[in-house]
């Protein structure tokens, strides 16, 4: 092994691994990663010692709940290197966070205003923008290079004076391709447009730096970065959040409520209507506090080593078609492929019998599937707890699937 990452030690803190009654080669991390011990512990501690509603009561449980919730916000801010904790909004997930920004911007956009996305987006970062068409907003779609990367040479042609926002994935959930942000930020700045990055995939594999990236909004989900389901994050640059009206409205996000008209609280509360996912935010905060202290160089080189082995093995299987960038450094350890004409569901089924968990389907990216000329793909996605045995089980299983299914 080219580095010192000890997978079995690392796995010990993922309780699912301790509970297995049969082998598991879990390679569906892009859909949902396994939950880390720190989240279990923090949520249990919270729900058994500090359960109360937040921001509302002044008895001790409520105070403790509010403190835990706000500490979690601070943990997220630290992980993202945000400027202030007020830039962190808790949501129920990535999809909810993107709908929040799209819905709130919807109140501000005028017919003819333009939103730019790419053909490679997850439906969650496509449909909320597409839907704004109903109010006369124009959706402009960045095309892709043959590798499935966003074709940046077309930015000047597509990002025009009416562009209000560019919404792109930080990394693709299908190909793992990492978006080259420098030209995107420059193009947006040139026309005064905002930039939203969908970090659902990225955050599991590293710390995105809000002060360095130059984006205005960044979103991700707890369940994809070893945290709980039911919680996600919207980071918004202070000025960017300040100009947005709320998306959902209700308890906890108001100034004054009167019969005719109401006023809103300042961010982040303006965007957190109702009782938030308190325990889940606390769990996510704990996971990010753990992640922030990880030896990232080591984890990343471990993942790269496995990914190299996986790609090399896949290239050796006759009839495999790999999607995505040829250069491994331009992508997360996520790969989509097809095995000849075999249907991805059949392939995944055979692999599941061999304890390899993959995902087959369109991965909520139908426009991208169409671009590649396929209905669906098989996807393998690695996390830091995967090991060589996982990769080898996948490769052997694919050979087997080819024989069984062909």
């Amino acid at each position, binding site marked *: 092994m080219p580095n010192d990452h000890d997978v079995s030690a690392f796995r010990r803190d993922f309780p699912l691994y301790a509970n297995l009654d049969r082998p598991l080669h879990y390679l569906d991390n892009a859909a949902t990663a396994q939950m880390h011990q720190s989240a279990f512990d923090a949520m249990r501690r919270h729900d058994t010692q500090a359960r109360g509603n937040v921001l509302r009561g002044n008895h001790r449980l409520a105070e403790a709940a509010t403190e835990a919730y706000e500490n979690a916000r601070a943990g997220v801010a630290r992980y993202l290197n945000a400027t202030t904790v007020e830039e962190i909004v808790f949501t129920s997930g990535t999809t909810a966070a993107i709908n929040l920004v799209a819905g709130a911007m919807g109140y501000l956009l005028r017919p003819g205003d333009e939103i730019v996305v790419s053909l490679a987006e997850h439906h969650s970062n496509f449909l909320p923008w597409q839907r704004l068409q109903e109010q006369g907003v124009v959706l402009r779609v960045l095309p892709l290079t043959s590798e499935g990367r966003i074709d940046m040479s077309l930015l000047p042609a597509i990002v025009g004076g009416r562009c209000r926002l560019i919404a792109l994935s930080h990394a693709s959930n299908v190909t793992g391709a990492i978006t080259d942000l420098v030209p995107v930020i420059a193009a947006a700045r040139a026309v005064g447009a905002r930039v939203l990055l969908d970090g659902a995939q990225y955050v599991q594999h590293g710390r995105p730096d809000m002060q360095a990236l130059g984006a205005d909004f960044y979103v991700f989900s707890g369940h994809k970065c070893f945290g709980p389901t039911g919680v996600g994050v919207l980071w918004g640059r202070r000025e960017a959040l300040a100009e947005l009206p709320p998306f959902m409205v209700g308890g906890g996000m108001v100034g004054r409520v009167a019969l005719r008209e109401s006023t809103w609280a300042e961010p982040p509360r303006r965007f957190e209507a109702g009782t938030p996912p308190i325990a889940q935010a606390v769990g996510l905060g704990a996971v990010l506090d753990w992640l922030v202290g990880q030896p990232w160089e080591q984890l990343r080189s471990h993942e790269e080593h496995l990914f190299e082995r996986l790609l090399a093995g896949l290239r050796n299987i006759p009839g495999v078609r790999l999607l995505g960038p040829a250069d491994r450094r331009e992508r997360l350890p996520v790969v989509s492929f097809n095995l000849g004409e075999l*249907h*991805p*569901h*059949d392939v995944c*089924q055979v692999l599941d*019998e061999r304890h390899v968990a993959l995902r087959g*389907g*369109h991965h909520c990216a139908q426009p991208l599937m169409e671009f590649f000329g396929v*209905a*669906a793909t098989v996807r393998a996605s690695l996390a830091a707890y995967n090991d060589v045995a996982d990769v080898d089980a996948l490769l052997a299983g694919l050979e087997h699937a080819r024989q069984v299914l062909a």
Partner: protein
Amino acid sequence: MSDALYQQAINTLWGIKDLASAAHGAGRLVAPDGSALLDNPFCGDRVRIEITRHNGVITALAQETKGCLLCRASASLLGLHAVGRSAEEIVNVRQSLEDLLRHNAPAPQDWPEFSVFIPARPHASRHGCVLLPFEALTQALS
């Protein structure tokens, strides 16, 4: 999964494979009386069913299926057995198929090949693949 079960799954897979490759009823009809095009929203699979009927009974059926083995095998079964059936019978047999998958019911006597789908029982995510052609036919009949 035990090796025995695994072996059984493989064997059944072969049965499914044969059915799927046979692709009974594959193609289009020139002048269908009814047709339906259905998608599986999870994988983009797509089934087109076309039929003609006379006196309430299916007289011809054609299917075009872009899908997994389970889906293609199921469509192929329609090509094999649907002609001569009434809409009512199809509704019932669709239900039998669902019962076989979800409630451990046995295969109906006149559709014995349904038993190839028994290994799909624990895989609820695949039930839709098996049922899709039957949903499409039901829709084409209505």
